[in-house]
């Protein structure tokens, strides 16, 4: 049986990789080597080079990938979850989904260390800080942390650094959601021994 001949238009890696094969030839010449392999030999130590190719399989086209991804997604069942504990159903307004979440102008930007070219997202983050400060009734909020659990751990660290008796215990009120707090167990961490894990008991 003859294997199906796929047109080059379906080869995703040729879209992902910027230089064309002709470009690559010119660039190799500018660099002063005759092949990619020669360049790699001059770059990567022989002592760590893998002899065997990766065992991932052939690349899929975008169409094939999306079809197979659909099949995987369909194995998830979307129930209505009323579980709470920090995660709630919410309506992402379509105008935000389409123009922000799905917009490369927003999602492909880098961290705003170069402020001149980051004024848009810096303003949006300032809005976030204003929103959090307003709603919590506090003076100053930061531009977000990784998740609520990390925020709680960081708050504990701020408390420890800023109070008068940093060696004492830190009290976790029993009715705090247990699953949300990492680090809350005995073990090798920066506040070892001062507190521990507990299951809340309804009173």
């Amino acid at each position, binding site marked *: 049986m003859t294997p199906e001949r796929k047109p080059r238009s379906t080869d995703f890696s040729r879209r992902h990789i910027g230089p064309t094969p002709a470009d690559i030839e010119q660039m190799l010449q500018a660099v002063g080597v005759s092949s990619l392999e020669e360049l790699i030999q001059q770059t990567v130590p022989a002592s760590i080079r893998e002899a065997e190719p990766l065992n991932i399989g*052939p690349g899929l086209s975008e169409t094939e*990938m999306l079809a197979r991804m659909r099949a995987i997604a369909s194995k998830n069942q979307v129930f209505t979850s009323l579980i709470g504990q920090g*995660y709630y159903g919410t309506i992402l307004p379509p105008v935000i989904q389409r123009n922000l979440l799905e917009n490369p102008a927003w999602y492909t930007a880098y961290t705003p260390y170069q402020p001149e070219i*980051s004024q848009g*997202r*810096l303003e949006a983050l300032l809005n976030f800080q204003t929103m959090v400060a307003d709603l919590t009734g506090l003076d*100053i909020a930061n531009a977000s*942390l990784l998740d609520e659990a990390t925020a709680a751990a960081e708050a504990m660290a701020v408390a420890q650094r*800023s109070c008068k008796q940093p060696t004492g215990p830190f009290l976790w009120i029993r009715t705090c959601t247990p699953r949300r707090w990492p680090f809350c167990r005995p073990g090798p961490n920066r506040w070892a021994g001062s507190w521990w894990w507990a299951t809340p008991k309804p009173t």
Partner: protein
Amino acid sequence: MVGDPETDLNPEGLFGAIFQYPDTLGQIRDLRGPIERVKAAGGLAVVAADLLALTLLTPPGELGADIAVGSAQRFGVPMGYGGPHAGYIAVRDALKRALPGRLVGVSIDSRGNRAYRLTLQTREQHIRREKATSNICTAQVLLAVIASMYAVYHGPEGLREIAQSVHEKTAVLAAGLKRLGFERVNSHFFDTLTIRAEGRVEEILAEARRRRINLRKVDEAHIGIALDETTTPEVIEAVWQAFGGDFKYPDFAPENHLPATLQRTSPYLTHPVFNRYHSETELMRYMRRLADRDLALDRAMIPLGSCTMKLNAAAEMIPISWPEFANLHPFAPAEQAQGYHELFETLSRWLCEITGYDAVSLQPNSGAQGEYAGLLAIRAYHRSRGEGHRNVCLIPSSAHGTNPASAQMAGMEVVVVACDAQGYVDLNDLEAKAKQHADRLAAVMVTYPSTHGVFEEKIRELCDIVHRYGGQVYLDGANLNAQVGLAKPGHYGADVSHLNLHKTFAIPHGGGGPGMGPIAVKAHLAPFLPGHPVLDGGTAPVGPVAAAPYGSASILPISFAYIWMMGSEGLKRATEVAILNANYIASRLEPYFPVLYKNEKGRVAHECILDPRAFKARCDITAEDIAKRLIDFGFHAPTMSFPVPGTLMVEPTESESKHELDRFINAMIAIRQEIAQIERGELTAEESPLRHAPHTVLDLADEHWNRKYTRAQGCFPAGQSAMDKYWSPVNRVDNVYGDRNIVCSCPPVEEYA
């Protein structure tokens, strides 16, 4: 310690206490008394609060809290089986210099106009290294921006209405359950009920699941139910059915169950930005306006060394919006998430294949969190062998600042190892330090290829030395993009790495988050990967490092799709071209800017360091001047002053075409010629377009232009196209002013005039 606020709050010696508001059972307590007691004893009071509830409830600041924390997830960010979401932290003014993470502030530019910037950066680990108080680099910018836009779109009245409606639905649900004879544990509530159902818990949960509803099992006798803005009357009727009731939603009139003493009276979101963009047209244009100010990959190469700003392909992004990935609760029963688990298993297998490791944890939400988790695994491993005293971590002086900050957080003592003139780790010094601390050596943290952008020949020897003295090798995976398909850390001596999926594996940077930092380990460390009480009941030797068991699950399909579409050959080719692109830039720019650090054969890895420090001495032109001038050419700057102060590190990635590389090279050559003018004494650095960069339309329109170069030279250097010009929205931002005058919320209206 864990306790009850009323009985266990003997504040003697406490450094702080954390309260939840409303708490995990849905109860809303007046926290003024307990907070006062904590503070009277010298401790700090932290309140974990629900932002939506705070539109109706007295806010933590007014209850006396010093710090508030929580999540902005329910402001429009899908649950995504656990993430990514934006956590938040807010503090009293007195604590602002202790605030971790990134902070946006208001400053001015060189024309005195308002400009935003990250403020108080000196607190961060880039500068303070092992003295840093937090190792966090990544925030959750994209998610924070979505949450902020949700608030901008709805405004204060809209948010209040959403909260009111959630509360009313919960009140109706409560009234029905009461009529059915069920006792509610929490006297007051916002959106969460805890219902006593002794002996019937499993039956009710099963009945609910039959109706495709998940409730929370609090314990053997209690069920938790939390509603939200998506809850419909049909869902509430189905919940009643699960409890054995057959009511209609309109049968009940909602009552207010918020405590009378805790109703919010203070205003919020009064700033115009939250009151102006309430139509779709207005919001669409506001978001467009902001996006137009920024330079992202959709405009130009972002040649940031060590950041791997490669393509985030459209096809990779599409699945994350599918409800089957977006709308799963992280604590939903595993059988409802079989697709996710298939994806986790396959992705973990692929990551092991690519790295040569044996096991993966997908939990860490960033590279920094991955480092922390990896070091905890190393410590737990030593402890399991009766060597818990091993706590010395060797770190080369060239390391990224996050490495020593993570080591410090994991309770390790940092010992710095020298680098030689070529930028390689000095193996003699490494061996000497390893020997000196042999009885306490825990680990080395090394980046490969090095932060200097070179494959060190002796990485195997380095690993062997550390193993010989009983240490483990933590290999920072930030530069994995130079190795995929060519070399595997797990095969040449490393024991554990974090993998920045947002670098090597195509997850977008989101303007500063989400990130994703899974860790991969050799088999002997596998038992010490982060656990999670949902998965192991809290019995794992190492606890969780993130709130959700699989971290930011909903963005994993991006990396999965990337690997799937590239395949074995595509992945290897991408690495080779990434190395070619870097060497092409190095070769072409070498005559103009010295390339710092190359291997014996004159090659760099996937990035190169351009060294303009001689110009500083010769004519006062700095790396910053060059970086800002690149903006006038429409480019994002390379990485500045890392890992070597005063230099520029360039990483093009495989995704940039020759055309774009040439455009960048030509811009750099044109900048070199501008520097030459200064060297020849034709004008001073102060008078040059480099020092005044970036240029704006205000320069073009300046009626009093008296510079030594023309407006066109400033704004359209080297024949830049006027049609495709990217205009920087502000001139150079004044960093000192911003740190002296700290303003971190929207400036008052009159300043917008």
